[in-house]
C-alpha cells in the first residue's frame, strides 16, 4: 500500500468529507485534502499535487460532472482518477459519469468495505502499488 498517495475529497457536506477521510485513514491513506465544491477543488488541483480524487456530484457552484469535465480538459490533471461518491442513483447519471471518464461510481449510503475495494481497484488500474 502506497501511503504517499495524495487524496482530494470533494463534497459540500462537511460530515461526508469527514466520513470519507476517516475511512481513508483507516485503510492506510492519511494524506487527504478536502474541498466543498468543484471551484475550490479545481483551484487546489491546479496548485497542489493530487493523485486521487473522490468527488460528490450534487454540489453548488460547480457540480461533480462539471468538475470532471474541467479536469479532463487539463493535460496535467486529466490522468488523475476520479471516483464519484454520490447519492445520485439514476441510470442516466451513472452512464454519463462513465462516459465522462469517471474511474468509478459509488452510491450513498456506502460501506467502508465498498470504498476500500473501489479505491484499491482503481489504484491498481492506474499503476499505483
Amino acid at each position, binding site marked *: 500500500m502506497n501511503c504517499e498517495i495524495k487524496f482530494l475529497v470533494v*463534497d459540500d*457536506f462537511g*460530515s*461526508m468529507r*469527514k*466520513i470519507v477521510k*476517516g475511512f481513508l485513514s*483507516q485503510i492506510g491513506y492519511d494524506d487527504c485534502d478536502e474541498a466543498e465544491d468543484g471551484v475550490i477543488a479545481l483551484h487546489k488541483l491546479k496548485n497542489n499535487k493530487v493523485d486521487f480524487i473522490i468527488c460528490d*456530484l*450534487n454540489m453548488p457552484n460547480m*457540480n461533480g460532472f462539471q468538475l470532471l469535465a474541467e479536469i479532463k480538459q487539463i493535460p496535467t490533471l486529466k490522468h488523475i482518477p476520479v471516483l464519484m461518491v454520490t*447519492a*445520485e*442513483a*439514476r*441510470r*442516466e*447519471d*451513472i*452512464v454519463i459519469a*462513465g*462516459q465522462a471518464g*469517471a474511474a468509478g*461510481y*459509488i*452510491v*450513498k*449510503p*456506502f*460501506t*467502508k468495505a*465498498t470504498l476500500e475495494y473501489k479505491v484499491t481497484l482503481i489504484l491498481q488500474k492506474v499503476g499505483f502499488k
Partner: protein
Amino acid sequence: MPSTENNLNNHQILDVHHKIGNLTRQLHDALTQLGHTEKLKASVGEIPDVKSRLSYIAKVTGNAAEKVLNLVDDCKISNSVMLAMAQSLGQSHKNDGATILHDYQATHDKLDEHLTDIMMAQDFHDLTGQVIARIIDITTVLEKELVELLIQTSPGSPKVEFVAPIVPADVLIGPAIDSDTNPDVMSNQSQVDDLLASFGF
C-alpha cells in the same frame, strides 16, 4: 347562558367555514379564468413529491438515531468490560496478564468498530440535507408563482405576462427515494457496478 354562548360560537364557526368555502370557490374560479391552473400544475404536482421527501427524511433520521443509540449502548458495555479487565489486572496476583491483555485487545477492537459504525451513521446528514435542499427549491418556486398570481389578481394591477419558471430536465435530484418503484433508479451498489460493466466502463 352557557347554551346560548355555545350556540353563538357554533354559529361563528359555521360562518367562518362558509366564508372559507366561498373564498376557495372564488380562488378556483379565478385560477381557471386567468389560465393559471395549467401554469401552477407543475408546482402542485410536486407537492406529493415533497411529502415523499419529507417522509424519507423522517425515516432516514429515525433509522440513524436508532442505530447510533444501539451502538452507544454496546460501546458502554464494552467500556465497562474494559474497566473491569483493567481492575482485574491491577488486582491480579497471578501471571495471567497475557490472557487479560488478549481479552482487552479484543474488546478494544470491538469498541473501535462500533465507533466507526457511529461515524458512518452520520451519513444521514448528507442524504437528508440534499432532500431538504430539493424541497426548498420546490417551495420557493411555488411561493414565487403564488406571489405572481396575487399580483396579477389584485384589483387595478396591470396585466403582466406570466412566465413559468423552467426547471431543467437534467437537474440533479439528490438521493433516490423511489428506487423500489422506479426502474431507472439503482437501489444498490451491485446494480450500479452491473450497469457500468454493461457499458464497458
